[in-house]
Structure formats: structure tokens, C-alpha cells
């Protein structure tokens, strides 16, 4: 069967009314929970799981997938308007999205985020259809050494994002890596910095960390600063329309972000986070005026949003072609198939082509629905900013606690978010970047685990990092990245 025939099969499957309705339901719910701070796709999919017992497996998968990528659209809304990212990748969107809101250009930022998300997802779909086989081979070809070097490359490339001075950026990454050490060490099984608390055995709750550092900190800062409370009133609907200058700035970042996201998304684990940070770092490095970034540069919204939405599509490759889930949410979706007696695995694509191609077709349909739904909603989201702050902020705090609680159902995490929020406020005062802390927190433990695993597998031989071609490529890229500023400095002096 040619790709075209397969796609047509998928489209005719996904457009059946009894399937289409679940796709609509999924993306609606996804974009709704995405907007609520902290309540992410994971919580929504867990709630929907019992319902899927009574649906066909294909419909179940299409609905749950809709929640997954739909949440990416919603996530941008809270990040841009209120500086409330629920995930590290939407933390990147706050960097320039929130300053745009403060300048009264929230409409533009949201419009750009939606268009970038849509285009990014479409790029992801094309890549998935054309390169599915190649991408799934990529997942098994990446070993521990390759992951370790790729993530170190990501850290180095993104190390100065959002930081006023490089040394502050490095300090935040280091702090993030340290916080990431909390919990059970994968390699030795040792319990680090858990103080006998079982709640800490799996590490700090990522959502609590993100909500505390951004959301709670921002609420405190706004209460302390009456000037900041006024920004909301100055927004007009006209600010939604991009100027000619904006239009010129958006397309290339979207394409670059989409390409980066498509590649990294296919790697299980951190694809989505890495692609958002790398897309941002790329735009800043390529820009003629890098100083605009962090102060409301529209490219800083377009690139990462295209990146993480492309990644959310190609992330399905290892899941669908090998039956190997790339992250916990994907594992949950496969769980929904197992309930129906379908064993996910490398034969799934051959055994049930209508499921794979139906899902791919539903990605396109779902994203089309999402953009049609979200563009008119922008006006309503902006109107939300006119809610007086003495109503808005308590509501934010309530939703945020609900979101944090929804992850594991532990009150411990709510106390944690309050404590982290205070620390986050102090960081705001010191102009320290919480986005970099999150990046260090997510990548640090993965770098450690993979570095040590690579050395274990190689029986202690460090040359493994240079012998494997993928790893060696990243080592080379890291060296170039580190030497580049020195070279520029030297040339300027000469």
C-alpha cells in the first residue's frame, strides 16, 4: 500500500462520525485542561481512561491523543497571559510571551502561538508520514552515551536563555541539576536528600516546581507591585493583529522550530522540552538583535511553540511503530489499548493499519479543529485579564493547587508549591531565570543516569563517547558551542 492510499484509508477511517466525535471531544478537553494551570494532559487522560473501556480501541486512542496535543495549545495561553507554565516547554513560551502581555500585546502573542502551534504540528505530521520508518530506527539507535551527550549539548546551547548575565544562567542550571538529585538514584538505588520522606523518593514534583517558580512567584510579585496590576486594562482587540514587521519575523522561526521539534520529538523522553529550549536558543543566536529576547520578541514565542507541537506529533513514532512509549502519558495511552487486549508492539502497524493511519489523519483533523476553535477564543482569553486582580489571583492560586494535587493526589505537593513559590519570588527579585532552573532540573538527572549507564555498559571506558558516531557528533557540537564565543572575542580584539 502506498503512503497516499494509506493516508486515504486513515482519512476515511477518522472521518467516520463515531470516530470524529471522539477526536472533537479529545481536542476540546485537551485545550481546556491545557489552559488550566498545572492540570495537564496526564490528569485529564487518567480521568478519561475508565470511559475508554466502553469505546472501540481506535476511538479511545484518537480521543486520548487529542487531549495530548490539544493540551499543548492551551498551555501557551496560561503561559503568555499569566506566566503560568505547567511544563518546562511552556516555560520557554513565558520568556517572551509574558513581556508581550505586559506591553499590551497579548493578542499578538496568542495569535502567534496558535499559528505556530498549528504549523508546527503540520510539519510534524508530514515528517511522521514521510519518515516514520527512519524515525523509529532512530529511537533504537540512540544509546546511553548518545543521550548523555545530546542532553549536555542541549544544556550548553540553552545555558544563557533568559538570563541577564551568563554567570546567573549557569548558577540557575546548577541549582536545577542539584534539585534534580533529590530522590532515588537510578544506578545505585541510594536515596538522596529524601530525609526519610517517601513523597520525595521519586524526586520533587515537576509541576509543583514549575507552578511555584513561575505562578506563585508572579502572583506575589504583582501583589507587591501595584504598577504591574494595571497592565491588563490597556489591551485592545486591535493589538491582536500582527504588524507588517511581526509578519516578517514569524515564518522562519516557525519552520526552524518545526524542524527541530520533529527531530527531537521522535526520541523518547525529553524531546519536547529539548526542542522548545533549542528552538528558542536558535532564534536568539540567529537574530541580528539578540538583546530583544526576553523583552517581548515575537520569534521567541513562534519558534518554541512550533517546536513543542511538532514534537508532540513525532513523539508518537516510537509509541506506534515499536510499542515503546516515549513518556508516561504515552504509556497511559498504550494502557488503554492493553485493556482492549491489544498488545502494543512492533507488529501493531502491520496488524492494524487503520489504527495507525486513522490516528495520523486524526492529528490533521484535530489540529485544524484546534486552530478554528482557538483563534476566536483569543478575545475571551484576553478579556480574562480585565478581571480585577483581587478576584483573579486567588482563583489562580486555587487552580494551581488543584493542578499540583491532580498529579499524585498528595497534600505534600501543595505545601511544596507554597515553599517553592516563596523561593521563586526571591529569585524574581534577584533577576534569576526560573526557566533555566527547570531545564537543569529536567535534564540534570537524565544526563547523570545516561552518563553513568554509558560508562557501565562500556565497562568504564570513557572513549565510548567518541567511538559512537552520534555521541561524537554531539561532543563536536558542544566543543564548537563553547569555543565560538571565545573565537568571537579574540577576533574583536585583533
Amino acid at each position, binding site marked *: 500500500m502506498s503512503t497516499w492510499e494509506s493516508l486515504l484509508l486513515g482519512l476515511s477511517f477518522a472521518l467516520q462520525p463515531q470516530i470524529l466525535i471522539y477526536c472533537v471531544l479529545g481536542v476540546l478537553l485537551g485545550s481546556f485542561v491545557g489552559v488550566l494551570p498545572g492540570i495537564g494532559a496526564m490528569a485529564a487522560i487518567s480521568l478519561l481512561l475508565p470511559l475508554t473501556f466502553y469505546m472501540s480501541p481506535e476511538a479511545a486512542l484518537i480521543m486520548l491523543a487529542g487531549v495530548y496535543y490539544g493540551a499543548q495549545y492551551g498551555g501557551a495561553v496560561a503561559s503568555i497571559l499569566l506566566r503560568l507554565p505547567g511544563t518546562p516547554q511552556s516555560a520557554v513560551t513565558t520568556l517572551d510571551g509574558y513581556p508581550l502581555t505586559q506591553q499590551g500585546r497579548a493578542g499578538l502573542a496568542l495569535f502567534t502561538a496558535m499559528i505556530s502551534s498549528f504549523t508546527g504540528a503540520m510539519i510534524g505530521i508530514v515528517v511522521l508520514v514521510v519518515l516514520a520508518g527512519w524515525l523509529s530506527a532512530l529511537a533504537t539507535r540512540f544509546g546511553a552515551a548518545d543521550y548523555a551527550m545530546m542532553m549536555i549539548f542541549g544544556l550548553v546551547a540553552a545555558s544563557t536563555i533568559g538570563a541577564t548575565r551568563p554567570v546567573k544562567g549557569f548558577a540557575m542550571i546548577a541549582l536545577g541539576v542539584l534539585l534534580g538529585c533529590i530522590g532515588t538514584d537510578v544506578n545505585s538505588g541510594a536515596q538522596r536528600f529524601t530525609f526519610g520522606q*517517601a513523597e520525595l523518593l521519586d524526586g520533587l514534583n515537576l509541576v509543583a516546581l514549575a507552578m511555584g517558580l513561575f505562578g506563585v512567584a508572579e502572583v506575589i510579585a504583582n501583589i507587591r507591585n501595584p504598577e504591574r496590576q494595571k497592565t491588563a486594562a490597556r489591551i485592545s482587540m486591535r493589538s491582536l493583529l500582527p504588524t507588517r514587521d511581526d509578519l516578517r519575523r514569524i515564518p522562519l522561526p516557525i519552520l526552524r522550530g518545526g524542524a527541530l521539534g520533529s527531530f527531537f520529538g521522535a526520541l523518547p523522553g525529553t524531546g519536547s522540552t529539548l526542542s522548545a529550549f533549542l528552538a528558542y536558543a536558535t532564534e536568539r543566536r540567529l537574530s541580528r538583535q539578540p538583546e530583544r529576547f526576553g523583552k517581548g520578541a515575537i520569534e521567541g514565542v513562534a519558534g518554541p511553540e512550533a517546536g513543542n507541537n511538532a514534537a508532540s506529533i513525532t513523539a508518537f513514532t516510537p509509541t506506534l511503530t515499536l510499542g515503546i512509549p516515549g513518556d508516561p502519558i504515552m504509556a497511559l495511552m498504550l494502557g488503554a489499548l492493553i485493556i482492549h487486549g491489544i498488545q502494543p508492539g512492533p507488529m501493531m502497524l502491520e496488524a492494524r493499519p487503520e489504527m495507525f493511519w486513522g490516528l495520523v489523519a486524526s492529528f490533521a483533523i484535530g489540529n485544524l479543529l484546534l486552530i478554528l476553535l482557538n483563534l476566536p477564543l483569543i478575545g475571551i482569553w484576553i478579556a480574562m485579564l480585565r478581571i480585577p486582580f483581587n478576584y483573579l489571583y486567588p482563583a489562580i492560586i486555587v487552580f494551581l493547587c488543584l493542578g499540583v494535587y491532580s498529579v*499524585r493526589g498528595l497534600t505534600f505537593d501543595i505545601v511544596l508549591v507554597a515553599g517553592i513559590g516563596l523561593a521563586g519570588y526571591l529569585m524574581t527579585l534577584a533577576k534569576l531565570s526560573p526557566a533555566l532552573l527547570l531545564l537543569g532540573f529536567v535534564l540534570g538527572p537524565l544526563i547523570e543516569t545516561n552518563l553513568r549507564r554509558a560508562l557501565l*555498559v562500556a565497562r568504564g571506558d570513557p572513549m565510548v563517547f567518541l567511538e559512537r558516531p552520534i555521541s561524537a557528533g554531539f561532543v563536536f557540537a558542544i566543543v564548537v558551542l563553547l569555543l565560538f564565543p571565545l573565537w568571537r572575542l579574540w577576533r574583536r580584539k585583533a
Partner: protein
Amino acid sequence: MKQSTTLRLVLASALCSLALPASAQDDWPSQPLRVFVGFPAGSSPDVLARVVTEKLSERLGQPVVIENRPGAGGVIGIQQMLVSAGDGHTFGTTINGPMTTSQRMMDDTGFDVAEDIAPVTLLATSPLVLAVASDSGIEDLEGFIAAAGAEPDALSYGSVGQGSGAHLTAELFAAEAGLSMLHIPFTSYAEVTTSIIGGEIDAGFMAPSAALSFVEAGTMNVLGITSSEPFGQAPDVPLIAGSAGLPEDFRAELWNAFIAPADTDEAIIARLNTEITDILEDPGVQEQMLGMGWQVAPGTPESMAERIAVDTEMWGAVIDRVEAQ
């Protein structure tokens, strides 16, 4: 933490003894049941619990609500069950880890298996299969033992973490076969599978259902299974017990069980045991579980207590050996 848990427990049970007369079990269940599961929704233990509790709810005429409290290999789920205990309507399901080995692996689990938990019944057991990549050229258990025995740590194997079932099973196997293998811990079976297929590590003990799909695709060979009898889902896979010089009584199984807080009324436990063992006799339920890689294993609370004791000792000896290395 332990103190405050105990305090809350005491307060909760005091409140409930005020609210409920002693003869409450006559009209039990008088309210919805809560069943704590220490794993996320959609995970294998969660799906298993849902299959059972759906039928249980029909039989008891009360809703049964699954409460997912994932974390610390299932320990958090049991802790949370104990915190909410005392109303006669709070229960849990657990895998073997927190009942047998977690006390050894963790500084403080916050509960004592014998004192705080009342067994209701085993639900199901699952063996593991020893899997290698098909391009390794290893076709059977003899071949594997020959390759692994060439020198210490000649072969590496992946597990889902220090002290996990996959780790301890591999160490038990290595000890019985007189081998020393290099342990590479991962965090999920997904990673272990990728690593075996990618040729980074040599082997791993995996769930039969997960491994068999790769055998079908021609990328993995399955060399043996750890159950004491042929397993319904993988009848063609040879038993490790009794082959390639391994002892006849070799058995390493994961299990899943229904538990109650220790202060639960005995009449309630007896009623639950009857209902659940009945549910497990249903051929439809058996087939559904087998599809997910679980063989039903209904029994009495006493036989479950015995299984806990036997397994705690067996895995304890394996942990001793690992720690001595």
C-alpha cells in the same frame, strides 16, 4: 512523617468508631469502597485492579472508586491507604514489591507488613521471560549460560531499577546458574526493550506479553520463563526450572494482591475474599487477565500471608547476596 501518619490514623479510627456501631458489618458495605493503587492510571497493576473492582462493584451494590497514588514502587499507595483507613471501606491492591522487598530497599516505608496490613487474597501472578536480541545469535538457555559464563560480567542485563522484580529475578537466576552478569538499571521496560533491540545491553527479564510481540517481529529471542508451570499466554516458551542445569524448583513470579488495613473487621475480609475469588473464577475475567499477561491466582488470606513470608525470605536472600558483592 511516621508520627503524623500514626496520629492521623488514631484520630481517624477514633472518629469512625464513634460514628459506626460495632455491628456495622451486617449492612456492609454502607458506602462506596475506595481502593488505593500505588501505580498510575493505565499501568498494568491499575488495569488489573479495574478489571476486578468493576465486577466487585456489581456484586456489592456499591461503587468502587480507584484511587491512584503512584510513587516509590507502590509504597505511597499503601501509605495513603493506611492514612485513610478505619472506616471499613478503604482497601488497596499492591504488587509483591512493597509486601516483600521494599522494607529492605528503603530507609523507612512507614508501615510494617505484618502489623499494618491484612491480606485478602492474591489476585494474579505473572512470570518473566529471559529475552535477548535475535541478532545476538543466542537461541536457547544453554547457549546463554555458555556465553554469560565465558568470563565474569561477559553479558549485561537491564532491569527497571535496583531491587525491582526484574533485577532480583536476574540475580536469582545468575546465582542458581553460577553466573555473574553486569546489571544495568533503567527506569522503565520501554527503555530496557529499546536497549536490548539496539544492542546496547545483552539481555533482560521482561513481561511475556511485551517480549512476545518482538519475538513475532523477529527482533528478539525468548529463552525461558520463570514460572513453575507452562504459562497460558506463552505455552511454547520452555521453563527455566529444570533446564540447562537449573534446579527443578526454580520459580520467580511477580504477583498482585488485594489488601486491607490491619484493623479491618474479619467478617468484611472474609466477605471480600469470597466475592473476589468468585470473580477470579469467571472465565471471561481469566481470559482478560491472561491477555494482559496475568494468570489468576485466587486463594485464602492465610495462603497469601504464607506467600508473603516465603517470598520475603527468598528475595531477602537474593538481596543479601547482591549487597555482599
